[in-house]
Structures are given as C-alpha cells and as structure tokens.
C-alpha cells in the first residue's frame, strides 16, 4: 500500500522543484550567452523583460524612464556575460542591477525636479492603464482615483522600503532573494517590509 503524502507537502515540493529548475535554466542560459549563443540571450530577455520593466516602472513611476533603465539593465547583463559565474540566483543578480539603476535615477531626478515627478507619473499611469470591459465612467474614475492614491502612497515610501515592497508584492520574491538584491539580511528585509506595510496601511486605510 503506497504511503500517503500530504497534499500541501506534494504541492510545495513541486513548487520548489519548479523554482529550482527555473533557476538552473536561467543560469544555464546565461552560461550559453557567455559562450556566445545569442539565442539564449533572446530567451533570457523573453523571460525577464516584463518583470524588470514593471518593477522599474513602479520604482520610477515613468514608463519611458523605466524602459530606458531596463535597456541599460539588459545591456549590462550582456556586457557582463564574459565574467558571469552562477554563484547567485540569476534573478537576484538581475534585480540588483535594476534596483541600483532605479535608485540612482530616483536620486538624480529628485535633484533635478524635486517632487514634481509624482504628479507627472500619476497622470501617465492613468493614461497607460489598460481598460477592462466597458466600465462605466464612475467606475473608471473611481479606479483612477484609487490607483493614483496607491501610486502616491508607494512613491512616498523611502527608496529601500519601496523596492522591498515592490519585489515582495508584485514580483512575488522571497525574503532571502530580496535580501540578496538589497544586500542586507533577511531580518532587515522583514523589518523594512513591516515598516513599509505599516505606513501603507495607515495611508490607504480609507480604501479598505
């Protein structure tokens, strides 16, 4: 009689196995890029283009700047192919580059324009949202207002807290991986996230 395996254990194990396969696949692709295989770079770009651009968009709140930064991220990945060693998870390395560029860009823009960018980003974000099936004008307006509030609340977070929240909420990253990206300990990440969510809960309490 076969031994019964708890459902959650099986699904968790499958999930972990799939994650491990994905990690190995990314590293394998990057090693092939290192050996001069251009097709593997195309595959890597296919897999990570979306997450990187969406993360950068939420970080800098400007789609044009986000895409420009994402270009730089992938350009750096391609440039570093010769020295790539699969010591860290590929996505950790990738998001470390992306976060570094985003934080630099935020610092530069803050120096140039002060806080004006928040309003600009809000307008752009509203314009870029894909409409769902024929919402009424009231629904659309309500959604835009809520989106604007969410964007402003996230934009008002300190840079590191913002990066941690975006990776945790929208990129579905583990604490260990976020710690790897932000070059800090897991407990520091938990602390960052706790403070950030606490602030967001207070700011968006009326939306509950």
């Amino acid at each position: 009689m076969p031994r019964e395996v708890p459902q959650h254990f099986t699904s968790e194990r499958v999930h972990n196995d799939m994650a491990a396969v994905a990690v190995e696949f990314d590293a394998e692709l990057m090693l092939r890029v290192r050996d001069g295989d251009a097709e593997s770079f195309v595959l890597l770009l296919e897999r990570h283009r979306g997450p990187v651009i969406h993360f950068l968009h939420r970080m800098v709140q400007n789609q044009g700047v986000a895409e420009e930064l994402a270009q730089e991220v992938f350009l750096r990945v391609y440039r570093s192919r010769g020295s790539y060693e699969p010591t860290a998870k590929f996505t950790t390395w990738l998001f470390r580059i992306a976060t570094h560029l985003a934080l630099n860009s935020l610092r530069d823009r803050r120096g140039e324009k002060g806080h004006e960018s928040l309003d600009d980003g809000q307008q752009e974000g509203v314009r870029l949202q894909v409409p769902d099936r024929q919402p009424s004008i009231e629904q659309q307006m309500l959604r835009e207002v809520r989106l604007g509030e969410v964007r402003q609340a996230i934009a008002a977070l300190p840079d590191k807290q913002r990066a941690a929240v975006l990776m945790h909420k929208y990129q579905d990253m583990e604490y260990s991986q976020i710690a790897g990206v932000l070059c800090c300990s897991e407990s520091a990440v938990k602390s960052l996230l706790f403070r950030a969510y606490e602030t967001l809960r207070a700011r968006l309490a009326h939306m509950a």
Partner: protein
Amino acid sequence: MNYCAGKLHPETTSLLHEHMQSCPECRRFVKAQTALWNALDAWQDAPISPAFDRRLYSRIAGREAQKGVFGRFWDRMPRAPFSSAPFRWQPAMPVAAACLFLTAGVLLYVPAGIPTREIPVENSRGESLAVDVEQVERTLDDIEMLRQLSPAGQPGAKSATAPDSRNL
C-alpha cells in the same frame, strides 16, 4: 504578510486561523493587511513598448560594432596569472593611450634651443645666406645623377643644368 501573500505553509495557516479565533488584535491586523494587499492590486502592469527588443538589439549591435576587432582583441587577452578573478584590461587602456601620447609628444617636439643644420654662407656679392645642408646634399646628388645621364658622359663635361656653385 506571508499569510496575505498566500505564501504561508498550510500547517502554519491553520494554526493562525485557530489563533485568530481568540485574538481580535491579530484578526484586525490580518483584515487591514488583506485590504491593503487587495488595494495594491489596483496597480496593474503597464504595456511594454513593442520596439523595446529592437532598440535593445540595435544598441547591442552598435556597441559590438564600436568594439570591432580591437574589442575582440581585448576580449582574447590572457587573464592575470594566479588569479581566479578575470583581469580587467579596460582600465589600463586610457593609461596606455596617455603614455603613447606623451611618448609621441616627446619624440616630435623640437626645442627652440637646439641648433638646426643650417649654416651661414656668403655669396659672391657678400650677402649672407642661410643654407640648409640637406638641401645642398640633395642638389649635389641631383647634379651627380644628371652628370651620369649626360650624353657626353665624359668626366669633366659640364652639365647645362648644373648650378654654379659659386653662386651658393
């Protein structure tokens, strides 16, 4: 936070459920965090420009073309011995270029104090002329060549084109 993200282990989730039955504070916290989690879902992914890949590949191609043969040469340079880390040649390039520039400058620079090979000569009228030695040598070589090509071909025959050395 993991509970709201759906990342909590099922066993821990059921323990938390049990705990929340008797803890209003935790219930409030979970409710607020779940509401926040759902509110953050309002921010959907924005569409990506269709030209993104093309722009990236064109930038990579441009960079590769810029590197060209010289870049490939640097790529194939040997690594630093006894070192596992790859040796970076790129920082050495500006230094090498600066050294090359300085060397070229030193070699091409002629200080004003160094005498040239011009020598003062007086002509028959007593006028002082500065004569370049190299020019004189070249002229003498030309005279010698014309002498050899002369139809008379006799030693001592005077070429019609030979200048009068007394006028020098």
